[in-house]
């Protein structure tokens, strides 16, 4: 039989990747999340189907508190990132400077520096200022600061690409029809940049709930977020409890993508700057 090359076959590498590194691991996580080991005299003799992990996740006060804290940190980080990133992206998109070069310099170059290195550098800086581990308040403050520092580019870039694509004639038309500059921004530019905001939020919110490197280093090991809880579980061989928490994050991710219209099939996709990532 003669081998016919078609474009479809170009997908094979990705399909293999998808099965090996996404689908199978996800299946394993679901499997572990809903099972529990059967112990006999301290030795594991089998596994059984169980909802224990799910029940524990939603009844264990520590885990609930931890989730609440993670969500709070994630929300704070997202809001602050948005407040900082939007004006920057706006100015960059509207300015006449050779944008690409500036953008590259300002936001991509710092990202080339290793992430752990950057967090450690920030840690040294905070400790030099004297607020590292100074009190519980500062532990939280530093954690959020580190998250913002880390995730800001992920907010700026989608916003920038969306804002860049907005046709300036819309704003001009609004102004011709009597809108003041702020009103034109509020009624035209902002709604049109919505896809960029949404993908920025998805890029920042979930990762900042789980980035325990930042919370451990900058929170002096005293700020526990769900990422550190998962790590702890796996380190202590509590595979089932850890998988359940990981599964919860997957569900949150899925729901948030769905709610923000990430699965819509319209041409909106092409205007969504988030596709950059």
């Amino acid at each position: 039989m003669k081998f016919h090359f078609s474009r479809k076959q170009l997908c094979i590498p990705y399909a293999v990747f998808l099965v090996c590194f996404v689908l199978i691991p996800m299946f394993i996580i679901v499997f572990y999340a809903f099972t529990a080991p059967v112990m006999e005299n301290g030795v594991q003799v089998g596994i059984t189907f169980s909802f224990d992990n799910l029940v524990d996740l939603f009844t264990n006060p520590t885990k609930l508190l931890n989730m609440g804290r993670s969500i709070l940190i994630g929300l704070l980080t997202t809001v602050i990132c948005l407040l900082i990133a939007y004006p920057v992206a706006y100015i960059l998109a509207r300015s006449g400077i050779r944008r690409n070069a500036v953008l590259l310099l300002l936001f991509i170059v710092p990202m080339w520096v290793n992430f752990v290195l950057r967090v450690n550098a920030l840690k040294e800086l905070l400790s030099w200022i004297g607020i590292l581990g100074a009190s519980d308040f500062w532990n939280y403050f530093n954690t959020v600061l580190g998250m913002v520092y880390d995730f800001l580019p992920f907010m700026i870039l989608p916003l920038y690409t969306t804002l860049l694509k907005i046709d300036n004639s819309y704003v001009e038309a609004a102004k011709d029809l009597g809108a003041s500059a702020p009103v034109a921004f509020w009624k035209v530019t902002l709604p049109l940049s919505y896809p960029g905001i949404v993908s920025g939020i998805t890029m920042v919110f979930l990762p900042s709930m789980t980035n325990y490197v930042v919370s451990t280093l900058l929170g002096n090991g005293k700020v526990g977020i769900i990422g550190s809880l998962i790590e702890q579980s796996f380190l202590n061989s509590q595979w089932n409890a850890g998988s359940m928490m990981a599964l919860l994050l997957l569900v949150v991710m899925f729901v948030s993508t769905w709610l923000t219209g990430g699965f819509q099939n319209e041409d909106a996709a092409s205007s969504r700057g988030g596709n950059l990532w």
Partner: protein
Amino acid sequence: MKKAPSLILASAFLLGSMATLTACEKPDYVLKVCNWAEYIDEGGKDGYDYEMTGERAAPIYKRFTEWYKEQTGLNVKVEYSTFETNEELYNKMTLGDTYDLVCPSDYMIMKMAAEGMLETYDSSFYDESVESNYYAKNLSSYIDSVFSAKEIGSKKLSDYAAGYMWGTTGLIYNPEIVSEADLSTWAVLSNPKYKNKVTSKDNIRDSYFAALAIHYEDELKKLAADYQSGALTYAQYNVKITELMNDTSDKTIAAAEKILMNIKDNIYSFETDNGKEDFMTGKVTVNFCWSGDGIYVIDQLEEEDVFVNYCIPDTASNLWFDGWVMPKGANKEISQAFVNFLSMPENAIRNTYYIGYSSVLAGDEMFDYMTDTYGVDEGDEVELEYDVSYFFGEGLVIGTYADQAKRQLFAQYPTEETLARLAIMDYYEPEANNKLNNMWTNIKG
């Protein structure tokens, strides 16, 4: 044709590496060794050989190949890898990684042995009359007694494990800032006087140990008094302390959780590695550390003319050790030869120099090395005869400066009278272990 040079380079490199690959004969056996990171002489610029001769040597595990070939004619290659925590090693092994020789700590050795994961050492390994049994010949009698006294099922610890490094846990502090009386108990961790000025360890084992010592403070003090008065023998006292310090009853875990919460509020951080740095920069004044790290910090600060001490609280402390064990299916003969190779006096010194921890091995060479390192400089007067006879043998003392009684030498080899209050950590049954893990989750939140 801009790409041509790099292509030529790349192919030249490929060809070159293939040539070296084919030049290297196929090894008769690949010995898989897994050890703590930075826990063996890696040669190079930090190695003992460079310090002594100015020549960079190969890592010790690579030298083994040569030595073993001389001994047996077999070509054995060592595949060396590292791990970060005992739990990580355990997980690797239970998930199917195979090794010939691994180096977990005390409680993990006992856990692995109890779960039937380990091979035992041959009795011939301990035969001191055999020339190449360097481990048996050089092992300190103190460590030997500890390893033979500990029972795991029907066997002894020494059947499963050959020691590597050992030490205590304690506190480093600057005597000019911190009053020694405050450090006589572990309660310093929750002492408001040191709010944000003291660190604890970011692992459940060490932190729980400290919490237990606080929980049982009165009992421990009473035991100490009984031992002083002679009502308890050394062995009885040690057994009782070890029992208390390994208590995992529900009531104790609950009490420890409260104590650890207080500790968390009081300390600067739970740390794994940052504590050394935080102590040296003065961010914290008391650092809960392993003796080996303590020595490192004392050495570092000494170069800046800052003199800090290491102490072991009066109530109790931990005697820890790491040991070489052979997982099931290991090549016992070569693994035991590897342990013996590491135990050759010059190699033991290389490792001790590189790691900075105390080797379980004694022997004349090690004693001379320690005397050279911590003894008085030529021409100086001996201020203190530091007794290390329990470790190195009858009558041996190191003539040193007075402050060594609280500094490096004390951290390397605690005084004989402190030994009685050192407890070894046991492994816990899965049920108790789960409770502890959950408790730790609550602490770390």
